[in-house]
């Protein structure tokens, strides 16, 4: 399958030619495939924010290429602008960019810039609001009357309303309570399913990532040293630790058990997998004992 979004030897240098020169990305080859749910992980200053801002044409590469559906997004200004609509980017703490008088108007800012007609804008605004769980009566409120969590929903809806094929979210759950985290991640999964969109999630929480994404890309010091399915990535525990990342707590416990001589499969990262591994080690078949996985999870944690 051809990637929907790709970078080739992407290099970005900030403040080139001054004493403050800093290379944030160094010949990065990155690819995202249609319909996948991808995670980008890296600690502060690793270059992950720089990378995602290239993916929708907000930053121009110092050298190298960014390709969207196989075409270089910087060949003509129209393509660049089009990419911004097709690759939606939700920044960190997006609630701080709200500016309109009503929630409805704020969500419609993106679609309006796309030049859509009024009926289509209305449909998209209502759809997007529905996706993030906003009620109809909240649409006419001022966004500044809402709570922090609701503001964030409005901001995410503002990007979803453009119905991008690729949705990038930078730390969408930062500063939310566990319930808020679950519900935002649920909204993102819903959008993923409903539009068969590509989702790129940026986070530094390994637990959250492990539960949500199918593939992980690790960014460190302007390079991508490790990528692959979470199970595979978490086997590089020591390297991740050196990058200041670490693996999910569960995986660490299981690695320790293995080191202590317990015959157990250490490549687990969700409670479900852990359960199966423990049962397998005890020589029992992993059978369901009733209860939803969610309830199971809460009990175990």
């Amino acid at each position: 399958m051809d990637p929907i979004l790709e970078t080739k030897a992407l290099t970005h240098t900030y403040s080139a030619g001054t004493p403050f020169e800093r290379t944030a990305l160094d010949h990065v080859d990155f690819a995202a495939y249609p319909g996948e749910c991808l995670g980008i992980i890296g600690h502060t200053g690793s270059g992950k924010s720089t990378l995602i801002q290239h993916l929708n044409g907000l930053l121009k590469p110092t050298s190298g290429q960014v390709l969207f559906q196989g075409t270089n997004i910087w060949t003509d200004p129209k393509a660049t602008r089009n990419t911004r609509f097709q690759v939606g980017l939700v920044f960190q703490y997006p609630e701080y960019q709200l500016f309109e008088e009503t929630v409805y108007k704020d969500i419609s800012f993106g679609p309006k810039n796309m030049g859509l007609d009024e009926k289509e804008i209305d449909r998209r605004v209502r759809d997007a609001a529905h996706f993030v769980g906003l009620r109809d009566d909240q649409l006419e409120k001022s966004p500044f009357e809402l709570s922090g969590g609701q503001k964030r929903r409005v901001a995410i809806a503002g990007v979803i309303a453009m119905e991008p094929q690729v949705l990038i979210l930078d730390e969408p759950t930062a500063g939310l309570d566990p319930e808020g985290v679950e519900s935002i991640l649920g909204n993102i999964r819903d959008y993923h399913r409903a539009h068969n969109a590509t989702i790129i999630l940026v986070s530094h929480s390994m637990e959250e990532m492990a539960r949500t994404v199918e593939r992980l890309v690790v960014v460190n010091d302007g390079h991508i040293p490790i990528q692959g399915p979470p199970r595979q990535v978490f086997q590089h525990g020591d390297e991740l630790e050196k990058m200041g990342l670490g693996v999910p707590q569960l995986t660490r416990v299981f690695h320790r058990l293995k080191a202590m001589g317990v015959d157990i499969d250490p490549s687990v990262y969700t409670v479900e997998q852990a359960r199966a591994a423990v049962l397998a080690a005890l020589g029992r078949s992993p059978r369901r004992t009733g209860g939803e996985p969610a309830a199971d999870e809460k009990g175990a944690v």
Partner: protein
Amino acid sequence: MALKDITLGQYFPGHSPVHRLDPRTKLLAVVLYIVALFLANWFVSYAVMFLVLALSIKISGVPVKSILRGMKPVVFILVFTALLNLFYTGGETVLVHFWIFTITLEGVFRAFFMVIRILMLIAGTFLLTYTTSPILLTDGLESLLSPLKKLHAPIHELAMIMSIALRFIPTLIEETDKIMSAQRARGADFESGNLFQRARALLPLLVPLFISAFRRADELAVAMECRCYHGGEGRTRLRQLKYRGADYFTLLLFLAITVGVGVLGHFGL
């Protein structure tokens, strides 16, 4: 983004003897230097002043190029001043006369000296801001103006306002950058269109920026109250300003220069 490249306070970090002087010394020296500039009125005294400036720049290690670059915005004022002095100075020796314009030798000299004076004035004050961090400068100003507190002038408060403003400029620039990116990601266009369209396009930037500035101000006020901030009275400082030998020497030197140039100027040199 070009916003990040803005230099603020134009401070040039360094360790030259000029950098290490007490900010109050530098402030006073600049005041004396400006007084001397206005006392100078002929080639000899201007030559002395030029020597003082050139030596100070040399010792500070600030590139002459960056000082010259800072002069660009005042070119218009310079040209304007030169023309005014050229045409409006009366005198005996008429060089050119046509229609209602008369150019005299005195006018030429006056225009020339005026331009030199402004240039040297700017260069001198630039040297101050290039070699003193904005925070130190504020501290120095507060300390120098503190006698006015006796007259109930809110010197400490003004200095505090200045330091806070300086402290938040980089933060606000970063914030502006972030909001701009976020709105451009939603298709906002800040670069094209006529003046009216551009002004309108700034709305999605300015509203969140103002809101966040107010929020920050509020948070800062609470944080200051939590630490029992109650104004300048009895407050101690992390950086104590202290005069050293070099400071006394510099002050005396500049005092001598000012008196000397004053004497030279008095005798029309």
